[in-house]
């Protein structure tokens, strides 16, 4: 099997509201994809040449554009962006909020089996086209709609509030200690985002007290125990990452390009209740999330101590909390220790989400997986500027879809 190298890529400014700017999806795709091509030094002409030999393809990650902007057939849509994509193989991949990761996975397969030399992976979502309640309904379709989405306002905050309740119950935690840990997770993500020039909340004000004061006018409860500061953002945005084969890398004399060292992909029972039932006898509250991470470590032949930086799926603070033990940073049930001791801080031993994560950087759902791998690329190539983790050699990302149903993990590092 061939290696998969990351050439580079680009992310849009997640603070932008494309509907307010009066722009449609083509503007989002055009800006992002050409920023990415510029970043790796590929031109329109290069794409046309590569396509003559059938050596380039496009992989699109998106959850639910059919609802948000009435647009389907998203692979083909790229031909509307530029004629250089005429004839280029292109398709859309979907797994709710893990759509970006499935697109990456499909691209990797086609590079590994030597079908293509260049794979352009673009993940995107336009979400600010509708109000938050309507958007919440669309996102509810990532759960089992019949029992977990239908006629429920903001179904996902409620599901992840259940995860919070279940975490407290399963590990017999002090509620205050647990909620304070969630607050700190939120605060760390906002603080990290303030260093990231593309983060949605980079200019927002946030302090730890605000994340602890739940149920106030400026921090209302959204579902169960979770308040506004526990939730990720509604975001418009796109991220593109460009992958290449070893052959292409050698032919073009490219050096210092990181590789995807390992991946893990596991799917848990779809409904939240079945997940919990399934995990009753397990040490981990989300055993399939843990398994996806173990699979990635095994494929990369690495352990947690080899990882210098993590990007995780903090769609809610309660999901980042459980990810800490899944990564192997602590034993399950002891995650609060890593949070209290500053281990996951920006300058901690295992920094999580230097980008700001989904809470601070933003969460255009179909884009998040691609944004995470792009951030790992930036970290291990020392290009994360303001939010660079010193001497990062290996990075790990966890991207989940639904209530931790689809679990995707990638490890990126220098060879």
């Amino acid at each position: 099997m061939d290696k998969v190298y990351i050439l580079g890529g680009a992310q849009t400014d997640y603070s932008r509201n494309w509907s307010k700017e009066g722009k449609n999806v083509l503007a989002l795709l055009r800006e992002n994809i050409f920023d990415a091509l510029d970043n790796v030094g590929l031109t329109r002409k290069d794409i046309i040449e590569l396509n003559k030999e059938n050596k380039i393809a496009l992989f699109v990650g998106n959850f639910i554009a059919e609802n948000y902007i009435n647009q389907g057939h998203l692979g083909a849509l790229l031909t509307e962006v530029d004629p250089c994509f005429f004839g280029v193989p292109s398709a859309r991949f979907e797994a709710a909020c893990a759509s970006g990761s499935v697109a990456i996975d499909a691209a990797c397969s086609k590079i590994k089996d030597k079908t293509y030399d260049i794979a352009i992976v673009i993940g995107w979502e336009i979400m600010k086209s509708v109000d938050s309640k309507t958007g919440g309904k669309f996102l509810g379709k990532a759960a089992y709609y019949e029992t977990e989405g239908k006629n429920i306002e903001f179904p996902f905050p409620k599901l992840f509030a259940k995860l919070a309740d279940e975490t407290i119950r399963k590990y017999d935690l002090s509620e205050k200690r647990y909620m304070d840990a969630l607050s700190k997770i939120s605060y760390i993500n906002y603080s990290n985002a303030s260093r990231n020039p593309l983060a949605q909340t980079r200019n927002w004000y946030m302090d730890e007290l605000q994340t602890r004061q739940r149920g106030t006018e400026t921090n209302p409860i959204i579902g169960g125990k979770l308040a506004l500061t526990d939730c990720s953002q509604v975001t418009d945005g796109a991220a593109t990452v460009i992958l290449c084969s070893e052959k292409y890398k050698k032919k073009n004399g490219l050096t210092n390009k990181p590789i995807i060292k390992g991946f893990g992909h596991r799917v848990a029972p779809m409904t939240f209740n079945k997940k919990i039932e399934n995990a009753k006898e397990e040490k981990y509250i989300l055993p399939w999330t843990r398994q996806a991470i173990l699979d990635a470590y095994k494929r990369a032949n690495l352990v947690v101590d080899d990882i210098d930086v993590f990007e995780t799926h903090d769609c809610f603070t309660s999901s980042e909390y459980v990810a800490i033990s899944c990564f192997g940073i602590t034993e399950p049930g002891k995650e609060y220790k890593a949070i209290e001791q500053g281990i996951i801080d920006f300058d901690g031993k295992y920094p999580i989400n230097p980008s700001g994560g989904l809470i601070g950087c933003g969460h255009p759902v179909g884009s998040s997986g691609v944004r995470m791998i792009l951030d790992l690329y930036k970290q291990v190539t020392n290009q994360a500027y303001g939010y660079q983790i010193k001497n990062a050699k290996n990075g790990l990302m966890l991207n989940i879809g639904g209530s931790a149903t689809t679990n995707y993990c990638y490890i990126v590092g220098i060879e």
Partner: protein
Amino acid sequence: MNINTITILGANGIMGCNIAGIFASFGKAKVYLICRTLNKSNEAIEKACQSVRSESIKSKMIPMTYNDLKKCISDSDLVFESLSEDINIKINMYQKIIPYLKENTIIATGTSGLSIKDLSNVFKDKKDNFFGIHLFNPPYNLTLCELITHNKQQKEKADELKKYLQKKLNRTVVEIKDSPSFLGNRIGFFFINETMKLAEKHQDQGGIDYIDSIFGGFTGRSMPPLKTADFVGLDVHKAIVDYIYENTQDNYNSSFIVTQYLKKLVEKGFLGRKAGHGLYYKDNNTGLTYVYDIKGENYRVKNDYNFYFANEMIKYIKIGDYKKAFNILLDDECIEARICKELLLKYITYSLKISNEVSSDISSCDDAMATGFSWIPPIALIEVLGGKEKVKEKVKQYLSKDYFDILNNDDIYNNIPKKSKYDYRSFLKGKY
């Protein structure tokens, strides 16, 4: 610079309470909010929390009145004056606080244009502690901060203060010489007043709504310029442009002449959004927007103008093909496209001239317009128009010698950076 305690004078004003919010949140400072009554101070604290969307800062803010000046001022590392724009009111208050100021307390005025030097004199041996810190409304969203000094001895303190404003308060700081209306407002009100004059000149075509349609979102702003004037307040607009007109003597000074219809509206009390009526008003019963018809001297229903060049530009901006959109503008010679490109070119050249005059960095005009007005900044606009060579050629083609002379000045022309710090794309809106 250690700034732990701050007093805001005039904290009940819109800027006063918003600035209190900025100091208490990003600045993590204890803030005394001084108003005429405790009730007003408490209201200001509520507004300050809302302005930064965080109730957590409430305990950092203390409601006070002018009876507490001694306690507040003697405890403060920085005093921020946010009183009305009247030199006598300000100086009167400065005299009251002088006895209580600590040796190194920074005193700052939020004036949007009065001479900092004139205001500083009252502080005598402490005048080097006096600065202009001009912020834009709302400061939580608009990060521009003009730091104005009045004397060279202030350099060291100004550097420290700049660092504090940048790093701690999260401001985009531009250092400006003491000059009429500083940088952002000088450029912004140049543009807005030019559109007011254009509306007067083209009153036969419809005037106000006609001109606003020519400078809609597709020209790089969230709100058309004359609608912006209504938001600012027509009295405020008039005061600012009158002040600049009276206090500047250059070839561009006539851009600040107030139009007859603006005088009339201000006299009638039709001051814009705050008064319910201004250049526009909205009838809440019918939902219709009315516009002041300059020729008819009355209000009529606003027209929906449609111009071929604008429709084409919007079509391309909508799909992210910005260069094509601006090539359409450059190639179109209809009267509206001419009006549009001529003023955009004036905006670029005038911005460069003023930036060069009042700031040590020519790119300051980009900071000012992007973070103070949310308008496409001038150097970014040069980029989308095809670069400075092309812009120079167009200025020669369309504008008078006065404007071409600006670009003929090597000090200015050679210092124009190839790329702006700001990405022009997000400023261009696919709509009127």
